[in-house]
């Protein structure tokens, strides 16, 4: 570890580390076809979610007598047991799932980073205590914990956002704490302190921006997991409740109609869900390779 550090500082003037946005733009996607593929799929899905209300062909909630119709020109992905259009419901669900997972993960990033930053910087018993707590939390079956918490708060979209946030806080706390620990002893922090910067300014103006890149990597991987978890919760019947459409609910509803051969009810929304998670994972994995020098060099 030590050897690496001294080598890196010797090579400093020759090999400048590219900045965060530059590496996202140039190094991040430009040279990695898989990253480009992931980002493209993600962009299409995001556009579909954003412009969802303009794209839907039918009312996603209103029931009609045209039940269990197979895919056709009128109903692109068929209709479900209440005669609702599966395509319109899938797009509406995607929108809801993106919002829920996005808000939850952003909240976790904000709170978790703050905890990690303070823990890493202050250290001492406070840090010890909090990290042991994080250890304990991480040995819990988080899916079951999430289910219990959603029930405690009452099943609603808001409680899923809060639960997604709560179960992801430990990850960010731990990652940012590690980053802070490794960076707080570097020279530029000493320099800032010598020039009379306050503790708060060191923490938020000098340390925080330098811990951002792992957050972006973890954020995209985490968003993938969060989208999956939101769907799992509603698949198990806890969380987003019908008639509000959700990808997990749609898959669950479809399982009862597989016997009748109505495959489109379960399989189509699930495919969109899998594509969403896959594209987020591709983007995250690609960024991880670019931003993490240990992997990027390989």
């Amino acid at each position: 570890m030590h050897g690496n550090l001294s080598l890196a500082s010797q090579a400093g003037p020759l090999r400048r580390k590219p900045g965060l946005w530059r590496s996202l733009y140039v190094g991040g996607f430009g040279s990695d076809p898989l990253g480009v593929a992931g980002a493209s799929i993600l962009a299409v899905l995001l556009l579909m979610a954003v412009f969802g209300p303009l794209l839907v062909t039918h009312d996603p909630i209103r029931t009609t007598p045209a039940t269990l119709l197979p895919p056709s020109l009128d109903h692109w992905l068929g209709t479900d047991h209440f005669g609702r259009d599966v395509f319109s419901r899938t797009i509406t669900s995607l929108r809801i799932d993106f919002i829920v997972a996005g808000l939850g993960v952003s909240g976790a990033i904000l709170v978790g980073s703050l905890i990690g930053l303070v823990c890493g910087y202050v250290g001492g018993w406070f840090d010890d205590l909090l990290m042991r707590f994080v250890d304990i939390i991480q040995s819990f079956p988080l899916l079951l914990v999430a289910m219990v918490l959603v029930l405690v708060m009452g099943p609603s979209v808001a409680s899923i956002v809060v639960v997604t946030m709560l179960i992801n806080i430990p990850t960010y706390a731990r990652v940012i704490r590690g980053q802070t620990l490794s960076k707080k002893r570097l020279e530029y922090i000493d320099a800032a302190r010598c020039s009379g910067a306050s503790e708060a300014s060191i923490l938020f103006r000098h340390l925080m921006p330098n811990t951002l890149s792992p957050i972006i990597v973890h954020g995209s991987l985490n968003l993938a997991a969060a989208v999956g978890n939101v769907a799992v919760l509603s698949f198990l019947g806890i969380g987003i409740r019908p008639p509000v459409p959700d990808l997990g609910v749609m898959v669950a509803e479809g399982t009862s109609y597989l016997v009748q051969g109505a495959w489109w009810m379960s399989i189509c929304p699930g495919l969109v869900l899998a594509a969403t998670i896959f594209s987020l994972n591709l983007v995250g994995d690609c960024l991880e390779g670019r931003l993490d020098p240990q992997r990027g060099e390989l």
Partner: protein
Amino acid sequence: MRVPPLLRYVVRRLAISCFVLLGISMIAFSMAYLLPSDPVTSRYPDVTNEQRAEMRRQMGLDQPLPVQYARYMQSVFRGDFGKSLGTGNNVVDDIRQRLPATLELATYGIVFGLLVGIPVGMVSALRRGRATDHLLRVFNLGAQSIPAFWLGVVLIFFLYFQWRLAPSPIGRISPMFSTPPTISGFLTIDAVLAGRFDVAWAALRQLMLPAFVLGLGVVSPVARITRSAMIESLQEDYVTFGRALGLGFRHVVLGDAFRGALVPIVTTIGFIIGNVFAGAAIVETVFAWPGLGRYAVTAITTSDMAPVCTCILLIASTVALTNLIVDLSYALIDPRIRHEYAR
């Protein structure tokens, strides 16, 4: 008297584990306590308010949370984990009945995950940066991205409803077969021990799809950690030395380099076991598997306090204890760590 460092480490690690278990029990109990349920109302729906208050007082439900927790822990140490409102049985009996099903499913799933994940990771490390590596990376990300519950539904639809290749997803074994006497709790093993090979084959067929879905979730983390650990250990001096000596691929890569990579791989097993339990909750629900995961999910959705608390307690303690065993096993795996303690 000077305590040997290895012993000191073991004692210290055991002490920390006790605190972790205590913390786990507190959180598990508080969570079950918070569940929106009222044992009195659900057991005796038509009692007057005064009777209800009296019963709550008798059951100790009017006491503050710490007192209830202390009472709960007392009964836990006596081996009494309470009664399930849903099944009417003692939670311990319920779990004893369901645990083997989950253990069998999880064992097959984990074995499948390791058998695929470790070679995939090794090949990616050896073919680093080449087409094979990129291909396996996409495979890994794909395995990680497919939602288990959806994959289960898709497999059931095609392999059972459409092509009739798989048996119907109705649990561990079709009721047409009489179950063999319980020895290990694993249906496949018990059937073989009883000489009932038709039953063993039927049980294995029931197991295949759920174990595959569960195991697929294990493949990706295992492959990922194997790849990075192998890349690191392939660069170690002892590997270069082995190569310079002209030792064969099997000796250098499968022997030395893999052994050097084993510590990080073993470290993820605690994490994997936690994941598998969560995955079991989903897979068992999809495949109507009569195991612990489905029991826990049902208990949570019906706000059944005692089983919820026990299941969370059981799973979290298993993960914590696995991590303890993993930490203690390092010295066995890696001679460098053993020497560090011995010094």
